[in-house]
């Protein structure tokens, strides 16, 4: 039953696995960033523009999380695939489609982040198990530790994508069937929330660079005038 439900989602699960791997393990080329991952997932679901739109909203959130060393942060690769698939499947103009897709993607990012934390502990256990062989200078033991880590991460990201999609796809359809607010309000709430998080993140970055706050304020003025003219 579950297998039959997951089968049509298989391409997205593979995509989620590959993009989840990119977050930390390999190759860190940032194909896992929301603006890329959600767009690709949206394209696979039949609507690259919807994927890009939700990718932009999630990218605002991703500006907040810098992947510094051993810090814990949300995992955007598989989460963006989830968001891109959900929003890409929804018909254009569906009330609440964007807000609910972003909400589910944020929850997925949190779950993905927790799974990465567990993966790091598992990697440490694998390394400890191979420690004696590595200390004796076994090249194959070093390779085993590295390849095991990469494989587990790939499986982890695939499982996170599969589990979230299995729950989220039917739930998403049910919520949207009962959602009554207009799509414009839904988009406005998402943009307002996402931009606020993005702006706060950039404000934080400016604290470590002299004069950067003035550059940000100037940029905001320029950006606001451009947006105002075309609105």
């Amino acid at each position, binding site marked *: 039953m579950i297998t039959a439900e997951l089968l049509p989602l298989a391409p997205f699960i593979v995509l989620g696995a590959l993009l989840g791997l990119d977050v930390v393990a390999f190759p860190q080329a940032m194909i896992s960033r929301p603006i890329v991952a959600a767009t690709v997932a949206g394209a696979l679901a039949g609507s690259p523009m919807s994927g*890009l739109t939700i990718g*932009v909203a999630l990218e605002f*959130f991703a500006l907040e999380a810098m992947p510094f060393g051993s810090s814990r942060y949300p995992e955007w690769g598989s989460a963006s695939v989830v968001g891109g698939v959900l929003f890409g499947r929804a018909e254009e103009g569906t009330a609440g489609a964007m807000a609910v897709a972003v909400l589910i993607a944020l929850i997925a990012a949190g779950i993905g982040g927790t799974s990465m934390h567990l993966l790091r502990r598992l990697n440490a256990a694998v390394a400890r198990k191979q420690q004696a062989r590595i200390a004796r200078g076994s090249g194959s033991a*070093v390779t085993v*530790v590295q390849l095991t880590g990469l494989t587990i991460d790939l499986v982890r990201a695939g499982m996170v994508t599969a589990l979230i999609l299995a729950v989220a796809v039917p739930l998403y359809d049910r919520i949207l069937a009962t959602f009554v607010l207009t799509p414009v309000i839904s988009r406005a709430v998402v943009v307002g929330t996402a931009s606020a998080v993005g702006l*706060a993140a950039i404000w934080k970055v400016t604290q470590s660079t002299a004069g950067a706050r003035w550059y940000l304020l100037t940029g905001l003025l320029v950006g606001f005038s*451009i*947006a105002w003219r075309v609105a």
Partner: protein
Amino acid sequence: MTEQTPRLPVRTWLAVFSRLFAMQGAFNYETMVGNGIAFAMEPALRRLPGGPRGPAYAAALGRHSGYFNAHPYLAAVAVGALMRAELDGVPAAQIERFRVAAAGPLGSVGDRLVWAGWLPLCSSIALLAFGLGAAPVTVLLLFLGLYNVLHVGLRGWGLVVGWRHGLRVASALDAWILRRGPAHMGRATAFVAGVALPVAAHGIIGPGRALLGTVLGAVAVSAAIVTTLRGKAEGWQLAIVVLLGFTLYGVAR
């Protein structure tokens, strides 16, 4: 250390360079990228006296798979320098001292240059492109192309400069881009992100000055709240609460 740079076959270089991309494949809280460093160096270490079965190879692998923490891209500098030191027969104690001394700077410079500079800058440029109406494929290619110029370039440069200078690589780390780059990138990021945020926001919500003005006004207030709450809750967590409330309201209404 020998004055003349030793030579490595092209396939060894390619093997080391490609392994750099999996530097964090076994990242963990105990050895951090230590195993990744050993994994990346391993093809070059096979050229130590006695080959992969010799005692020099065994000692070097054991040494380098221990704790090491650095930015994953700039870890390439350490890989190049340590490979050179091992093949030059530098004493183990000197190599250990370098490992301890190099980790901090290679971490902090990389974090500031890439995670807090180049990544948000490329991200902001892509957001701006979206807001100005660029097609999805253009936005993707722009972001990935720009970002990976520095990403791949840093890994390649780091490996070469580390190999060329060996344990004296600290002088090479005085390069302009590492010294002044983070500050310039911070200012550029601040400006471009400032332009991109309202333009991209408009790209999502569509036409209508009243709506745009209301949303951007709310963004300014909400951003101040998120900044005030920093340390207690992260923005994306607060957003879950807001969107959950909005969804429940939209369904229950």
